[in-house]
């Protein structure tokens, strides 16, 4: 008797779960159709769908700059782009100070704030971990936070820095570690509520890549001297080929930081655009079924993927920085290594 009852209840619940969203969906569609009937006359049917979607989207995803976004694209862009206003919807917004020095606008923006939060978290974590290590002797085993961070630090130290740069890697270790944890925190802060992704802004990634570029070139100059550095630019070819080789090598110098810039920026931006687009599908199609079956599961999946990508991109930026430094300091096997890098 009992199992049959349970089965019946389950079946009933299944039907209910399927039918209720459909019923509600029908209601909203009817409402949207009546509410925008006038506009529909002017814009034609596709516009109805879009307008209605925005009418729903505005509630939780609308920008805070005062002007009203009209399309999902604008809302998405608003989330991704930097701004002078930090919005905590629906609680309000904070207008960030605008600073102009010598004609340059260096005002504090949303991404600057998030970057500072990331920097503060990194500083706090590693100040405490560093304090632990300062107190510790070689005989103590690390535990807790220090142990967790040690795994990452040791990974960067041995698998990224030592294996790519080789002897003398200790000099570059502070830069590589800082860049890894800074990018990681910036990436992850884009995934918390009210967060943003500074590394999804090309200005930030460009600055970080320029740091790598300068460090690479300085390391190369130090390792080979000025003469060796210039000889490097000719790629060891005959002088008659220099007219071709030198421009190519110089372009090659700049493609590396450019690749770093675009890789990090595009990866972080793309994930956010995908998540927001998936959510907007349900608003555009005005369907609860789509929301339950497509938008939510897929955006959760992309969100989890983004957590992985945050670590991966921080690692790749660090890895490639180490690789470029290693290539710049060691002359042998230059071309083979570079060919391998191109596939990343």
């Amino acid at each position: 008797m009992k199992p049959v009852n349970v089965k019946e209840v389950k079946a009933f619940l299944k039907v209910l779960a399927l039918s209720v969203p459909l019923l509600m969906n029908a209601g909203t569609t009817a409402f949207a159709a009546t509410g925008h009937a006038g506009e529909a006359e002017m814009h034609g049917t596709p516009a109805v769908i879009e307008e209605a979607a925005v009418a729903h989207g505005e509630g939780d995803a609308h920008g805070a700059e005062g002007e009203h976004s009209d399309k999902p694209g604008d809302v998405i862009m608003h989330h991704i782009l930097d701004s002078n206003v930090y919005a905590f919807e629906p609680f309000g917004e904070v207008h960030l100070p605008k600073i102009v020095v010598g004609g340059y606008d260096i005002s504090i923006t949303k991404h600057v704030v998030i970057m500072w939060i990331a920097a503060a978290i990194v500083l706090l974590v590693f100040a405490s971990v560093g304090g632990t290590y300062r107190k510790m002797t070689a005989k103590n085993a690390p535990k807790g936070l220090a142990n967790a961070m040690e795994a990452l630090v040791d990974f960067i130290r041995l698998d990224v820095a030592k294996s790519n740069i080789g002897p003398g890697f200790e000099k570059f270790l502070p830069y590589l570690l800082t860049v890894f944890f800074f990018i990681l925190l910036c990436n992850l802060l884009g995934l918390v509520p009210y967060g943003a992704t500074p590394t999804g802004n090309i200005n930030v990634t460009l600055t970080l890549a320029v740091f790598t570029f300068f460090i690479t070139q300085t390391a190369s100059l130090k390792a080979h001297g000025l003469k060796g550095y210039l000889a490097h630019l000719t790629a060891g070819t005959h002088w008659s080929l220099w007219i071709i080789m030198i421009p190519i090598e110089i372009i090659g110098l700049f493609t590396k930081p450019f690749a770093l810039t675009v890789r990090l920026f595009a990866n972080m931006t793309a994930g956010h655009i995908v998540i927001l687009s998936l959510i907007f599908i349900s608003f555009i199609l005005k369907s609860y079924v789509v929301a339950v079956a497509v938008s939510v599961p897929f955006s959760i999946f992309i969100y989890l993927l983004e957590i992985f990508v945050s670590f991966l991109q921080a690692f790749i930026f660090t890895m490639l920085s180490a690789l470029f430094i290693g290539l710049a300091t060691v002359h042998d096997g230059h071309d083979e290594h570079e060919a391998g890098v191109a596939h990343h």
Partner: protein
Amino acid sequence: MLTSGVILLSGGLLSPNPGLIFWTAVTFVLVLLILKKLAWGPIISALEERENGIQSAIDRAHNAKDEAESILRKNREMLAKADAEAERIIREGKDFGEKLRAEMSEKAQAEAKKIITSAKEEIEQEKRRALDVLRNEVADLAVMGAEKIIKTSLDADMQKRIVDSMIQDLSSKRN
């Protein structure tokens, strides 16, 4: 979706922002400098120290093992040598004992033989002396008997009695 793609290209996604570049550079350099002083130094030196510690511990363990092995080998050699020595000593002792025993028994035999010969000689001498004494006695008796016979007459019965009594005397004396 197409509209968002269009906005992506036309929007401010790739627009430069000197303020953000400036703040990124400042923030990053500050974080780098502070962390270098506060965290990376101690952490990396601790890691290196530990690595060196582990390496030296491994080296020490290897050395200790080698040393223990050499000591063991030496001990085994010494033990084998001691065994051989002990065996040699036992064998020598046995040989010596054997020899001593043989010598002793030989000596004892010789001694015994000597004692026996000397005893035999003494017995012989003693026997000879006893015989001499007996002979003298018999001669004396014969002379005494003859004297008696001569003293009394030459009576046959008498003579016979005399001889008998003499023999009886002799036999009682002998006992």
